[in-house]
């Protein structure tokens, strides 16, 4: 499901949508970096995101704790951007 999701995002050909972006302490870092958070989709540029989309499947939900965690790691000045749950069909 997630792989197909990545392929669909890529097929849109939109340079302002990136999948699987990791942030830590305001830095854009390599995915899997200890202490980082992964944004499933970032809209905008990596350094200047305008929205983040979190892909959820099954009973999983985007929680306030998860939203706060993501926000705490975004670059300076982008802590208030929308963080939106998207659900796989």
């Amino acid at each position: 499901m997630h792989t197909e999701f990545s392929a669909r995002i890529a097929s849109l050909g939109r340079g302002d949508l990136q999948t699987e972006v990791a942030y830590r302490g305001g830095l854009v870092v390599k995915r899997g970096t200890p202490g980082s958070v992964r944004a499933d989709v970032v809209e905008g540029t990596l350094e200047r995101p305008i929205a983040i989309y979190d892909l959820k499947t099954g009973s999983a939900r985007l929680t306030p704790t998860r939203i706060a965690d993501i926000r705490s790691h975004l670059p300076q000045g982008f802590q208030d951007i929308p963080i939106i749950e998207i659900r796989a069909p």
Partner: protein
Amino acid sequence: MKEREFEKLIEAHILPDVGEMRVRRSLLYADTPDGLLRGISFDTSGFSRDLFYLQAFVQALFVPVDTLVYQVGRRLRGLFQFKPDGTDRPEVMATAAAAIIAEGLPFLDQMTTAAEFAAHAYEVAGTNTDPYIVEMVGYSWIIGGHMGRGKGEVHRLLDEVLSPSWPPGRLIADRARAVETALGESEERARDLLLRWEAETRAALRLEPHTAASPAE
């Protein structure tokens, strides 16, 4: 895919076509005598171990961090995916090599010295207000011998860019003040401080001190 597997694949399928670069695990890179790390990282997807991205980036190593930083970078176009049985690895790596040559290396070639990095980083990143990028640019000017510009960017970082309400900014501010103090003593003190931080970053990233790379290494 495991990083060691990437290392072998990069050595076999990419390295012969990219000139004087090196491989460390899933990182294809060239560093410069003045402290830049210019890299293409092969980043496995968290969605599927057969899927990976190619991320080109340039990082000023004299800003002390313990991770690769993509702030001045570009993800190469395309989604690279192996079949689960691995039978198409040469073909996928050939596609990756083509993307690196067409898009990745031209990106890296914009910034081959600290001064070039300082001159282009804001344009590449599309912002001159990201604290980490401003920090890298300021110190790059200093390393590149442009002390006036370096001092100007360090002052701008402290006085205009950093927000006191952003917690990670405290560490950046502490470093910038240390550089400012060192600059007040002498240019050499400031350079020594930055070279010490570069050594710390290299150690954290397990990069050896810079030497001229050769394809045979």
